[in-house]
């Protein structure tokens, strides 16, 4: 799941300062689940903006809406009229949704209301953490299902570095040393010998360092 976090209100305020008819548009999938962009957050943000404008003695007209996914063009059509009726869309979708909106409505200013933070899991209610960096070349088979690229602060492939203490990373005692976890897991699986081998240098070209990635499945295309 894509995890997002709403931008600081001051930043949003500055972004929308020139506009008086605003559509706050939520996305009801990933970022709703991470409490950054669902209808609940749309209502809260809209109320905040209204109060802020009221205090500044400025008029504002805010429409609140949320659609299932802002990353699919078909869904975007349902808000056609709402978009037409506003000066600006404050999108509470991830970066994908914001760009999809901008692509679908090229004449409209689409602003991002949140930061797309990472791909991760809900550890528990209210706590999310990163799991995958989308590097394009999965190595989880070799590391016991734990990703050192997303979860080691240095992205080491042959860890742990000397900063690993009590299973925690040197950058913070709140961060698990993923290499410790990898070792524990492989030990439990009786596969510790996997780590005897030196991990080869990684091909980063498929991870986005080789340019924007695209997948084409000929069998599915029109």
């Amino acid at each position, binding site marked *: 799941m894509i995890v997002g976090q709403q931008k600081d209100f001051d930043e949003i305020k500055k972004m929308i300062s020139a506009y008086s008819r605003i559509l706050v548009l939520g996305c009801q999938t990933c970022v709703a*689940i991470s*409490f950054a962009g*669902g209808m609940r957050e749309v209502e809260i943000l809209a109320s905040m903006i209204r109060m802020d404008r009221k205090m500044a003695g400025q008029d504002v007209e805010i429409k609140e809406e949320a659609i299932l996914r802002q990353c699919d063009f078909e869904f975007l059509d349902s808000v056609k009229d709402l978009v037409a009726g506003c000066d600006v869309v404050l999108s509470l979708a991830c970066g994908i949704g914001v760009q999809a909106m901008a692509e679908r409505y090229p004449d409209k200013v689409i602003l991002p209301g949140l930061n797309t933070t990472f791909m991760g899991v*809900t550890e528990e*209610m209210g706590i999310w953490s990163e799991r995958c960096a989308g590097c394009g070349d999965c190595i989880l088979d070799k590391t016991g299902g734990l990703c050192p690229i997303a979860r080691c602060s240095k992205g080491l492939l042959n860890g742990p570095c000397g900063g690993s203490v009590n299973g925690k990373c040197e950058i913070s005692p709140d961060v698990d040393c993923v290499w410790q976890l990898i070792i524990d897991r492989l030990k439990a699986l009786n596969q510790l010998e996997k780590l005897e081998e030196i991990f080869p240098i990684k091909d980063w070209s498929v991870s986005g360092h080789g340019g924007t990635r695209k997948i084409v499945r000929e069998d599915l295309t029109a």
Partner: protein
Amino acid sequence: MFSNFGSILVVGGGIAGIQACLDLADSGYFVYLVEKSAFIGGKTAQLDKTYPVNDCPFCIRYNEHMECASHTNIEVLTLSEVKDIKGGSGNFKATIIQRPRYVDIDRCTTCGLCAEKCPAKVNDEFNEGMGKRKAIYLEYSRAVPNGYVIDKKNCLHFTEEGCNICREACNEKAIDFDKKEKDITLNIGSIILATGFDSVIPSYYDYDKFSNVITSMEFERIMSLHGPCGGHLIRPSDRKEPKNIAWLQCIGSRDIQHNYCSTVCCMYAVKQASLAKQSNRMLNAAIFFMDMRVCGKDYERYYNRAKDEDDVRFVRSRVHNVFPVDGTNDLLIRYADEQGKISEEIYDMVVLSLGLEPSQDAVKLARGLGIGLDKNNFIETSSFAPVNTSVPGIYACGAFNAPKDISESITEASAAACASLLNMAVSKAALYDESLEKTWQKPVSTGLVVGGGVTGMVSCLCLADQGYKAYLIEKTDKLGGHALKLRKTFKGEDVTSYVKELIDKVENHPLIDVCFNSEVKHTDGYAGNFSTRIAISSSTETKKIKHGITIMSTGADFFRTSEYLYGKNPRVLSWFQLDKMLDEKPNEIKKANAWVFILCVGSREPERPYCSKICCSNAIQNALELKKVNPDMEIYVLYRDMRTYGLREGLYTDAQDKGIVFIRYKLDGKPEVEEDRDGRLKVRIFDNILGEDLIIQTDFITLQTAIVPGNHDNLAKLFNLPVNQDGFFKEAHQKFRPVEFFAKGIYLAGLVHSPKPIDEAISQAQAAAAKAVTVLSKEYITTSNEVASIDLKLCVACLTCARICPFGAVIITGMGEPYVEPAKCRGCGICVVECPTRAMVLEHFKNDSILTKCKALLEPFMGYVQ
């Protein structure tokens, strides 16, 4: 229609009586509640707050009072007394005499006009005589039954002929002076005595002479918001706020006339003193006591808080007398401290912590019924049948059995309800009005009991004897638990043969299925419909059990100490080892010259700040046994506070008479145990009274080790049950719902709740079974709240509702579709506000409607600003 034949008669409308009525009525039986006064609620209703939670008892119990008065299966007879009972178990004929109320309850709207006009002023006994009421009165605004009553003794209509002022004032025409006393005859199957207690009326300390010497109950009324002082702490003589208050303990307890401890006074004094301190930080509050007996669940913490946070002063002493201070209304207290040094201190106000004794009317009634009473007039009961009297079919609960506090009285009330149902002669009323409630399905009429100790076995038998199938899950290969290691109860009853008999009954009961070597692996469902998977260690397969209720009775463990050379020297024994020795090696005991008992081993320590409750009594009981075997033996008991509460005080006085030496030690001056080269033991202890170190050469040492919570983390997780700071299970309400969990349909009993002796564990087991029957006996699983629902069009299966619901009422299916379990949802709305896509709805609490309400409330006020 139903026949009243085989109904149950509950005598006494206090907290225990009400509880017994409700449990019986909820299980489908018809109950008559006979209450002497005009209102139910008893002494509890007079209390300001209750320890150890500081809740207002009246607020919390109000619903129960109302329910009792309006339940279709309960008939409340106020102003009534038992005149006569004939017949025997299953076929009693009771004659009740009911005095007239003179006010028609159905008409009275409690408008209060009558009392306003009534010319007769009377001392208000509800307020302990402080303040006045009229001859027509309501005890307090929400008293139940909620209608006025005329106090004939003081009413001018009767005393001076002809006063009709109230009758004329009443718009509802509710007053009728012509009503006559009447006899009511009832056919009764079982009788429960819940007559409560009277406070001991002190004849010393000049209670009557000095206005600023008050009783503990008077103090409760002073502190009560609805009391005569409106909750302001003032002293009677000049209505000024006192600066110094002293509490004197054991007034009418632990003396020659009362060879027992009243059990509750220490805690209520601690409560009163700390509440007083909380209302006025500058107050000097001192409690003069002999032993601080705070041995219930969380009581020690409460006491520690009073001492450490509220700064209540605790003075270990004997008070000689209270004198007036000339020219003031102050009082001088002369007392001797532990070393015998006499001191004097002046106080503005003195509170006498009065002891409890059985009420005189009740004693008379019991004697008339031929019920056996002990020398203090408490009902004689067995530890193994704690609510049975000597007369079959008659049960007793609450303070008539022994002095006890609210939660234990409530437990016993439920236990008595359970016991009276086992008396097969009572017939079911089966009268429900379920038209107002939503119904779902029939409950599964099977119980699951986890833990096969005495508690679990008793619960099982209670269920099975009432015709419900019961599964008993035991993790070991035999039943009995820790009780197998015990010899005798404090009353001297033989535990070993009792447990043997119990095991026999359980194992041979056709409705009980005992699963040995088994544990719970998974559980699901709600009250009336649980489904639990059991793993049996001998088999790879798991067993699935469908059940309507669950009782947790997994017991506790014993602290394994490394102090005092335990485990190093074979002559340092645990109490079980001593029990065993008494049975098996009396000759070794005969040879011993000296024996030392060390109490509070592992209990009341910083890492375990609770009292294990049973160790003091057990130590003395065993010490007396040793004396029996070897009367010449020197026996020393090293203790911190001697907590022989209730009737156990008799053991203590007996031990003192037999020359057993008691030496008190402090936490920072623990005894030291050494062994010489030959393994001989030496105990060094500082004697507070002598003010010097004593060295005791001894042959044996027995350690009274703490009771510690068992390993029930897994059960807690599986059943989503809370655990308190000490690691014991946490019940729904410490005072008023002692054997229930917050989650409906799951109950707890025995040591899993807190440390306790076998009699209290058994009464909890019976109480839990009584609660369980209220669910099992239902025709339908019901709930009366609105439940949350989900707009599936908006739901993205984010799991928030499932994660946040405190009751686990939302289930997400494998396909990602959420479902609200109606019987589990309590309609709190917590999920509704957090649902990120606004898919969750609660009909009576719709988001839109609350926002509209919010707007509407704010609208008319706009005018103020302009």
